[in-house]
């Protein structure tokens, strides 16, 4: 891009300035978080009106498939949220959908305010530095003490619990075992294999696309890419682009049906795709790349200016409790943050072992790469737009 030409000499352009500012702000937040104690503080320093005085109309930024049970939008059979909707009704909940984490931050910034947001943890510093969220009062969440301490610590900034961890899992390539040779499915380079041109679909989102390219290129610090590494990854993604049938936006209405129909054979996905395809009788494997899988941790954040403070806590409690967490794991085979859910409660023991569902620390294991905060996300976003426009 021309910015490279502009970068000569001592001049600093606006984008560099933005990136640098974001890096400093985010870095400061991360450093604060690192320096904090592991014990979360209650966020209820300011007084909030009692639940009976709240409007109760929750506005939630959410992924498709995670809507509370009882709402019309929940069609996948998830039972989480059932205790909330049974108590307060389902009609007062409004969902705004996100399809990737970059978009989640963008919508939280521009399309809000939301009472509750459910992004993944990597952009947590941005949510805090932008003033979009406030800490939870963990004393109002009766199941909070059941949550895994390691995951809980990942949701803290400056000693305050900004994110209540709920679900975690992996990202890799799912592939049709009846169409793709097992010898080809050994690493992330499978997405670059011209043999499968027109049968591949990567996820439409800057951060993950660059993480995948970084792993394929052998960059160990996939979220800390240097400028030259970003350019190399960009070139690599540009080369890969024509091999895609499409970049998928929606998991349930776009990617999974396309795998099922055979339109695509290889797609970036999470482990739930393997489970859904198995149920549909489609032979799909969730690749264990030689460079390692990606891993993620998502949870609930509380809107900075919510008028439904107590409703929001009740809503999240209806998700993080034992029964809701166990059912979520049995439905999607994502890991749960609730430590009281034992592997014995999960139906498919093979998957439990393969995905290490009983051990949340697996997301930070030696063979996986936890998606984390990137200081040069603005540069990645622009580079991704260029890849798509190229």
């Amino acid at each position, binding site marked *: 891009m021309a*910015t*490279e030409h502009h970068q000569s000499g001592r001049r600093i352009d606006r984008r560099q300035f*933005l990136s640098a500012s974001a890096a400093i702000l985010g870095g400061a937040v991360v450093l604060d978080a690192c320096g904090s104690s592991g014990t979360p503080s209650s966020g209820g320093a300011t007084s909030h009106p009692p639940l009976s005085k709240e409007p109760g109309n929750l506005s939630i930024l959410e992924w498709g498939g995670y809507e509370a049970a009882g709402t019309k939008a929940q069609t996948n059979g998830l039972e989480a949220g059932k205790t909330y909707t049974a108590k307060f009704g389902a009609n007062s909940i409004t969902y705004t959908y996100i399809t990737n984490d*970059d978009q989640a931050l963008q919508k939280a910034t521009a399309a809000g305010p939301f009472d509750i947001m459910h992004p993944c943890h990597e952009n947590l510093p941005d949510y805090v530095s932008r003033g979009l969220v406030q800490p939870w009062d963990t004393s109002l969440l009766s199941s909070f003490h059941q949550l895994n301490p390691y995951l809980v610590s990942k949701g803290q900034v400056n000693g305050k619990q900004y994110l209540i961890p709920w679900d975690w899992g992996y990202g890799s390539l799912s592939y049709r075992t009846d169409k793709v040779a097992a010898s080809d499915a050994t690493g992330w380079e499978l997405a670059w294999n011209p043999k499968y041109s027109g049968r591949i679909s990567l996820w439409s989102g800057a951060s993950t696309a660059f993480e995948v390219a970084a792993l394929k290129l052998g960059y160990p610090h996939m979220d800390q890419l240097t400028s030259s590494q970003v350019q190399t990854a960009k070139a690599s993604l540009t080369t890969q682009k024509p091999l895609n049938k499409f970049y998928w936006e929606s998991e349930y209405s776009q990617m999974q049906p396309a795998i099922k129909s055979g339109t695509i054979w290889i797609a970036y996905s999470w482990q739930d795709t393997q489970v859904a395809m198995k149920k549909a009788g489609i032979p799909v494997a969730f690749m264990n790349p030689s460079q390692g899988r990606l891993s993620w941790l998502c949870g609930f954040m509380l809107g900075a200016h919510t008028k439904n403070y107590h409703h929001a806590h009740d809503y999240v409690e209806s998700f993080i409790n034992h029964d809701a967490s166990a059912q979520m794991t049995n439905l999607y085979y994502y890991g749960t943050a609730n430590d009281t859910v034992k592997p014995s409660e999960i139906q498919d023991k093979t998957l439990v072992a393969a995905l290490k569902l009983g051990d949340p620390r697996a997301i930070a294991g030696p063979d996986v790469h936890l998606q984390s905060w990137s200081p040069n996300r603005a540069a990645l976003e622009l580079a991704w*737009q260029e890849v798509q426009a*190229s």
Partner: protein
Amino acid sequence: MMTADGHAARSGRGPRRTWARPGKGALVLPPLLFVVVLLVLPVALVGLYSVGLRTNIPGTPTAFSLLDWKDFLTGGGSAFRSRFVYSMEITLFVSVITTAAAYPLAYYLSFVARRRRYALLLVLLAPFFTSYLLRVIAWQIILNENGVVNSLLWTLHLRPHGEAISWLIYSNFSIALVLFYTWIPFVALPIFVVLENLDHRLPEAAADLGASRAATFWRITFPLSLPGVIAGFVFVLIPTTGEFIAPLLVGGPNNQLFGNSIQAFFSNSPDWNYGSVLAMTLIVVVVVLTLVFGRFLRTDLRAGTGAEQ
């Protein structure tokens, strides 16, 4: 009888009550406000974003900068420039094809269908009672690898079972087809209206004077219907320049239009400033197109205004 202020008072009813009548300015005010608030102000805001005077990231300082413009117009933003050129090519192609196909349709409705023409027009417009998004998704179902078209070809043994036509979807073809389908009624309508208002005595006179049907069409009917043709062409051209839904749903990664880049900058990326540069470019293009084609669109309304003066 004249009153002091010059008004004629009707005898027996006393002096006429005069009401404060709004001037022309007051009548223009509501539409003017509408245009300023809903068009000029948003465009001005986009303009401010494009030069760095506004930002969508809270806490980020703003400063006037033309770097994004320079980047797009002259620098390595060539990916977006080439996407713009590609989009304009698709737009022009779709506009020409749609207009060419809409003309015989409008001609049939006006000259052949006769009493059934309004019923047929309703049939033509019926799909538009459903949402655009649903109609594009319906095309997905028709064009997909396991969709209606491929299944039909397999059933009729016109292609080996399981072997789908690869270019049916996620291709330039699918985008052009969906845009063609979307806009053809809107192009046919202005042509139909012009043909309906055509003085039918003129073709009859031409026939009486010995002109063939082809000569009558090319020398009388077609030239007189040109304002409708141009209006229809513009009806497709202008909205299609910013199209992003059809490429998103039936286009592949290589078939995304300029509108998709703009949409992505505003929905997925933190860089509204660069997105605004692209948006302003499109706005300028649309304004220029409107000005150029507006010269050819002399409507009855304008003629009426002129007659009053």
